[in-house]
């Protein structure tokens, strides 16, 4: 019997494609619905932020950090602030740290809401996406009141934050958290526990702990593989040691440890933990200044340092080299999405095209963070 002659199909996915979260491109080698390989092609959103840093000075770079990862700009703000503070040995006032934690955790909530919503969108359910965005809007409203912007916050400064909490904001924030907790349960009933969702996500593209570490996955993606690592707990920064919260880990409850469902549930569980941190922070807010005294013409002593911040997309590394002038010599951001993109080619082998979409969404890849 003569065999049927088949041909490998090369598909181009992106850069304009609904589920590539920004502008990513994949060259897919497919055999029908099953992929042989998906080769990522990034760089469509490269804005040379690291080069800009060398030219705008330390204070002036703060608004640019918003653009490194515009979905959770507070963490990039914080990373840059912390790197400069470490270089110049500045201590942030305690109230400033609390403000940072509150803003950052709200931003984590907002970012995770977007991620879980996009997961819904990517597997074909529009409603969870809009429900998540509705909640995100409310957080944006809060953040807007806090710092005047909804997306590119530029809230933090070297040495603290630019604004204290506005009057009455704390009560609003607490009321919002009371509103959010049942909404997360409802979201789970609507989407997370839905049989179709579980079937779509469980057992898709599992990542072993060794692979996760070897490929330098960070944050929720790493924890989903069962590695107990959270910068907030393990290399404590800011005032995180003062809070009581858990680090959720991937359990493989629905399939294999480290599969897409674990990565997805990690975000849901982290939202619950963020809400816990926020409640504690809002209740224990100390009095005092929010901004340390930092000269306008900031010139840290020559040296270099690396800072790690637990952003919504995981451990974000800021490597800053200072030569003692008003401009940083070199700034490098090691972001979670960049590492996550590196593993997609390996994971994509043997997946279906529909699973690639799930894989991208579950790794929570955000294009600006990859390209910077």
């Amino acid at each position, binding site marked *: 019997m003569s065999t049927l002659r088949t041909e490998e199909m090369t598909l181009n996915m992106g850069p304009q494609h609904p589920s590539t979260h920004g502008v990513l491109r994949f060259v897919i080698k497919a055999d029908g619905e099953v992929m042989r390989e998906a080769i990522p092609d990034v760089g469509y959103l490269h804005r040379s932020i*690291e080069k800009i840093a060398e030219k705008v000075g330390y204070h002036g770079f703060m608004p640019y950090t918003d653009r490194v990862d515009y979905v959770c700009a507070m963490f990039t703000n914080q990373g840059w602030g912390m790197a400069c503070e470490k270089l110049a040995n500045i201590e942030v006032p305690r109230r400033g740290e609390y403000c940072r934690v509150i803003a950052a955790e709200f931003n984590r909530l907002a970012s995770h809401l977007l991620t879980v919503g996009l997961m819904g969108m990517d597997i074909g359910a529009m409603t969870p996406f809009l429900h998540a965005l509705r909640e995100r809007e409310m957080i944006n409203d809060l953040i807007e009141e806090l710092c005047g912007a909804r997306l590119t916050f530029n809230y933090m400064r070297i040495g603290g934050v630019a604004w204290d909490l506005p009057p009455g904001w704390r009560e609003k924030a607490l009321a919002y958290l009371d509103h959010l907790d049942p909404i997360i349960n409802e979201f789970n009933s609507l989407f997370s526990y839905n049989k179709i969702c579980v079937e779509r996500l469980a057992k898709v593209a599992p990542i072993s702990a060794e692979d996760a570490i070897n490929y330098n996955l960070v944050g929720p993606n790493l924890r989903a593989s069962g590695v107990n690592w959270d910068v907030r707990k393990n290399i404590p920064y800011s005032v995180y040691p003062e809070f009581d919260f858990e680090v959720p880990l991937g359990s493989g409850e629905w399939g294999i440890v480290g599969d897409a469902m674990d990565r997805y549930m990690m975000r849901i569980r982290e939202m619950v933990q963020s809400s816990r941190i926020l409640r504690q922070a809002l209740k224990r807010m100390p009095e005092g200044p929010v901004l340390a005294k930092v000269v306008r013409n900031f010139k840290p002593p020559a040296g270099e340092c*690396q800072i*790690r911040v637990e952003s919504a997309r995981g*451990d974000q590394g800021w*490597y800053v080299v200072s030569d003692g002038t008003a401009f940083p010599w070199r700034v490098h951001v090691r972001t979670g999405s960049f590492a996550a993109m*590196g593993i997609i080619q390996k994971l994509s082998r043997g997946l279906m095209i529909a699973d690639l979409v799930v894989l991208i969404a579950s790794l929570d890849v955000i294009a600006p963070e990859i*390209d910077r």
Partner: protein
Amino acid sequence: MEALKIYERVKERFPDKVLEVSEKKPDPFAAVAADAIVAVGRLLHDDPETAMDCLSNQTGVDYKDRIEVVYHLFSYKHHHTCVLKVKLPRENPTVATVEEIWRAANWMEREIFDLLGVNFDGHSDMRRILMPEDWPGYPLRKDFVEPLEYHGISTVRESPILRLDQKKKHEHA
């Protein structure tokens, strides 16, 4: 383990390959000879005392007289970190890849190649990653001059506002 202790361990093993251990604050680093980076990396990765199982960050810095490739290693087992550096000449900088030790190096080395022009020997996929394939030069080098146009597309937007003082200067000139 303290980073400095790790450097001493490496130095015990490769006395002539560790060129410099800096006390430079805030983060100390060890400069390693370019030809020894794979051996040192392998040592740090395999030694159960150090167990540097993660290449947390790899990047390059252009110091005008040299290019340094910086390796931030991290151990999820011991929760310690260390920084290695390799100093390379600016003309045709080449160093062996550590991709075989840490897979994460694949993309990071591509990025360094793309933005700083460092060649990584033995890398499986040495292509540009962020910039277009035909982009001239390496943008993160200090002497990089951005071309005024790329395929006929202007890369500059002239500012529609002009400072009066500059305008005057301009008119004088």
